[in-house]
């Protein structure tokens, strides 16, 4: 399907949704729209991309035309190259209180579980839920885990949550319902940076055991 053929549907009276499916196409379109024109918000979802427009400046029909033009101009050549980011982490213990129980349930050793995570080619699918919370796809299907029955009132910044098929990285302290298996030592949020969140949709991520003890 050519990019011009994606359906564009209203998402309220001041946003449009591009039904482009999952995969890198979301980031390529986001990159294209972000670099060629002004949009108040460009938000990747799990299987689409939503753009907000300013209804004081243009009608929905005009905004739809702008999206369609950008898509027709082609997004494949948008030269969006995913960044590759390595994060160091400490697993288990106080920083990963749910690792042991998860390993036991899966009939694996903690070490094997950590190795499976290190070997995963992860990608930031999208951010959402709370500021900077990153959903990472690409985890092996054997790592089965469900949300906690009782969410924690506070999960520390950097915590690594794991539910079946996905890793969730908490950029800030806050409430959380995912089982926590470890914590990254790299700061995911730098208050003083113009772009304070380290991860962006589309980034490729590897999580490795920290060498520091």
């Amino acid at each position: 399907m050519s990019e011009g053929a994606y359906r564009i549907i209203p998402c309220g009276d001041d946003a449009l949704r591009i039904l482009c499916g999952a995969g890198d196409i979301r980031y390529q379109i986001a990159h294209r729209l972000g670099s060629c024109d002004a949009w108040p918000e460009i938000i990747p979802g799990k299987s689409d991309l939503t753009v907000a427009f300013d209804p004081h400046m243009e009608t929905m029909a005009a905004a739809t035309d702008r999206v369609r033009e950008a898509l027709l101009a082609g997004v494949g050549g948008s030269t969006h190259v995913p960044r590759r980011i390595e994060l160091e982490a400490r697993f288990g213990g106080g920083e990963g209180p749910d690792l042991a129980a998860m390993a036991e349930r899966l009939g694996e050793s903690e070490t094997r579980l950590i190795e499976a995570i290190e070997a995963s080619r992860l990608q930031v699918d999208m951010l959402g839920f709370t500021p900077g919370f990153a959903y990472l796809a690409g985890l092996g299907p054997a790592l089965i885990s469900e949300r906690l029955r009782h969410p924690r009132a506070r999960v520390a910044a950097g915590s690594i949550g794991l539910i079946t098929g996905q890793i969730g990285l908490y950029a800030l302290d806050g409430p959380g319902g995912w089982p926590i298996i470890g914590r990254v030592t790299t700061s995911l949020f730098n208050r003083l940076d113009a772009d304070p969140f380290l991860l962006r949709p589309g980034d490729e991520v590897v999580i490795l055991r920290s060498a520091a003890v």
Partner: protein
Amino acid sequence: MSLRVLDPGIQCTVQAAARDGLRHAGVPACGPADPVSMALANRLVGKPVAAPCLEITFGPACFRFESRTQIALTGARATARVGGVERPFHTTISLKAGDMLELGPASAGARIYLAVSGDLPADPFLGSASTYLPAGFGGHEGRALRKGDHLRIAGIDGLPELETPHALRLPVSASYALRAVEGPDWPPGTHRLTNAVYRVTPRLSRMGAEIDGDFPSFPDAGLKPSAAVFPGTLQVTPQGRGFLLLPDGQTTGGYRHLLQVIRADRHLMGQLRPGDSLRFLMCTQDQAEAALRAKQVLLETWMPDFRL
């Protein structure tokens, strides 16, 4: 000049402009739940429409002003007394040093805005001074105000005393009709809603309001892949409960996005309180655009720098 918080009420935060442009990073809009009322309060004390203000939830609340200043109150319906004497909302109120402002409990609506003529201190964060409580940033130390807080305000007084034109005073009541357009998950062929009456439950915060009532059911009741949601999004859970998202609401969600309150009417959501009845008036995109233009033209006559 300074302001002493004697009683912040249930929740009192500093709010200013919306925190725009970061929803892809999970950062919600923040800002006043009722931006029209906040802008009107600022207008009465000669401030830009998005200057930092206090957003007071429900009341009662009490503040002492330690030097001469001018203030204005808008939003929910409540009594205001200065030195025991009742003072009206929607006017510039001149205070002497030591004056105490006592706000009664709101009898209709949920949020009162208190604007002051001087500059209210607020931490700018990610492009806005608005408080975002779940992550503890913006506003006053990223938190709600507490009894005993002392806010230093650069004092200005001697402003002309103004009154909000009557045509612009928000009708706060216990029953609201919000205009809405169909959301991306609106079930085709659904004609319900327009005559149905919904009710706001006690589960209410700056993140959203739970709405009780008869919502259309979805053939596949489960979750869908997470996608962008906005203030004004009405989500329906598999159990058939509605959640109307407010300024601090999450940026993405996996529940069905049934409808979207139109831009022109979103400010009204900030005054919903538990027990209020609610109707959704479904409209077309053309009607939504016309409604926005009409309300914008009206508000611009009094506040040229305000955008809905």
